[in-house]
């Protein structure tokens, strides 16, 4: 990516608004002294922009904690509810430019894809790998496509073109983005995550989620869970994020989980509750 484009993206993301519905809820909840902490946490952790910005603020070099904060729940325990609440409020009220859907990129469909990827990644971590604290899997699933939010917001036309090309030619969206824009959402998302000093595993997963064989410092558990969840969410058509291609699990992943994608879907069972939960947030 050339540095001019990089600088432009950095600037625009600072101005990026959260999704309008969560702004409304955050303001409503923070005005209520007796709001249940878990309600506030739920709103924050379902909005990619607020989550991303919060992780950015609390992991910045300026305010580095001894341990990097990898999820909204970590932030509540490590920084305290009140600090998280005020962070959310300051992020939510920074400005009120509405995030619009375009013909090619529907915001609600995108959110549904991100949220189901997040919750399925969490389910996979629990059920296939016996992980206890899976809040970082949720966050990583939620933010894996963050680069698309940026492209949709600020390179709307070119990003729309890429979606059309991907659909017409049946190629992965990131390849179409590369053709039209000269970079793709994994690079854009990872560049921002890196610049913002987000947790390394999260950054690596954003960068590698279309390249599951990449050798990287990130523990494969996160990469694998999110990659698998991303494919399952697409396969079951939970929302849509512009990518028509479903990729098979690479061999090492089949080994890790002991199943292939179809077997995993079968083992996960009925996922309609995850979809309903996500929809109840999107359409609240």
């Amino acid at each position: 990516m050339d540095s001019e484009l990089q600088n432009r993206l950095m600037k625009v993301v600072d101005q990026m608004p959260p999704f309008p519905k969560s702004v409304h809820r955050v303001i409503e909840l923070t005005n209520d002294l007796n709001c249940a902490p878990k309600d506030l946490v739920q709103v924050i952790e379902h909005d990619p922009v607020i989550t991303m910005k919060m992780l950015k603020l609390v992991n910045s070099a300026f305010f580095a904690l001894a341990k990097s904060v990898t999820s909204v729940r970590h932030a509540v325990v490590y920084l305290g509810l009140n600090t998280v609440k005020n962070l959310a409020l300051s992020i939510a009220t920074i400005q009120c430019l509405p995030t619009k859907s375009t013909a090619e990129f529907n915001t609600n469909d995108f959110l549904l894809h991100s949220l189901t990827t997040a919750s399925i990644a969490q389910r996979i971590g629990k059920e296939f790998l016996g992980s206890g604290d899976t809040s970082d899997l949720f966050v990583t699933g939620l933010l894996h496509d963050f680069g698309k939010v940026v492209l949709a917001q600020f390179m709307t036309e070119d990003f729309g073109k890429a979606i059309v090309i991907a659909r017409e030619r049946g190629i992965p969206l990131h390849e179409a983005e590369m053709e039209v824009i000269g970079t793709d959402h994994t690079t854009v998302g990872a560049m921002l995550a890196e610049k913002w000093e987000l947790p390394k595993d999260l950054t690596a997963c954003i960068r590698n989620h279309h390249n599951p064989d990449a050798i990287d410092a990130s523990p494969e558990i996160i990469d694998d869970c999110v990659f698998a969840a991303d494919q399952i969410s697409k396969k079951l058509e939970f929302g849509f994020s512009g990518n028509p291609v479903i990729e098979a699990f690479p061999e090492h992943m089949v080994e890790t989980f002991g199943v292939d994608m179809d077997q995993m879907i079968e083992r996960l069972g009925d996922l309609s509750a995850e979809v309903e939960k996500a929809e109840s947030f999107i359409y609240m």
Partner: protein
Amino acid sequence: MKIKFWGVRGSIPSPGPATVKYGGNTTCIEVRSDAGELIILDAGTGIFPLSQSLFSEFPLTSHIFNTHTHWDHIQGLPFFIPFFVPGNTVKIHGAADPVSQKGISEILSAQLQYRFFPIREAELKSDIEYFSLKEGEKVVVGDAVVTPVMMNHPVINFGYRIDCKGKSVFFTGDHEPWRNIYTPEETEEYEEYKEIMAQKNKQVMDVISGVDVLIADTSYTPDEYMQKIGWGHGTFDTSIQMAKEAKAKALYFTHHEPTRSDNALEAVFAEALSRNTRHEGDPDYFLASEGLEIDL
């Protein structure tokens, strides 16, 4: 190392005949290293009488460590006399604020605005240096080492451990034990949150572990606490639990509730001790009071 309490009251100064014994000033603790380095934990109103005891040491370098920037922990700062005398150096250490994204250097300029205080920061005569601390990064003060760790309060609050020549003290600042925001019925979330709390508690315990003296925010009785959940303060019982878990040798209860008279304070202290019978190896328990000195 020597420790002296100059302010033990929480929230707001509480002078008057009913608080003469334990004192009405808000938080301020003087710590002296073996070599005589001056470390001041918080600048509540207790820092004013402390500063009056320092004249003979001018020119003096003082290290003020601020646990957090709520009023009762900074209210005495503009009256810290060394600021007004040339030749003194005051080093102010504290946490940055993630919401405003500002460092601790804001602490004085926020207080010394002309409408609220007659002297501007620029008019102070001493040298002033600010240090925005990062969690876990040790600060060397002569022969002492100060380690900050983040506690739980409605603003960023550092607890500080001070080590000197094999002796140690930890002050929590204001601290409420972490609480699960989910109910046990919400099994998955509850368990996950519990695990994050356990990780955080372990991180804090690793810092506090084995201290000679633990000074802990003990604002409430367990009954009172039920009305004050989320206000960011501990109880007698939570402080005792923390001290036992950390294997502290002595526990000093501080941040006394401002409406509590001396008699009432002694009564709730006695009740706490009867609820928590001391066993062999448990810490010794004390109420912090203004003027009380600990020699380690």
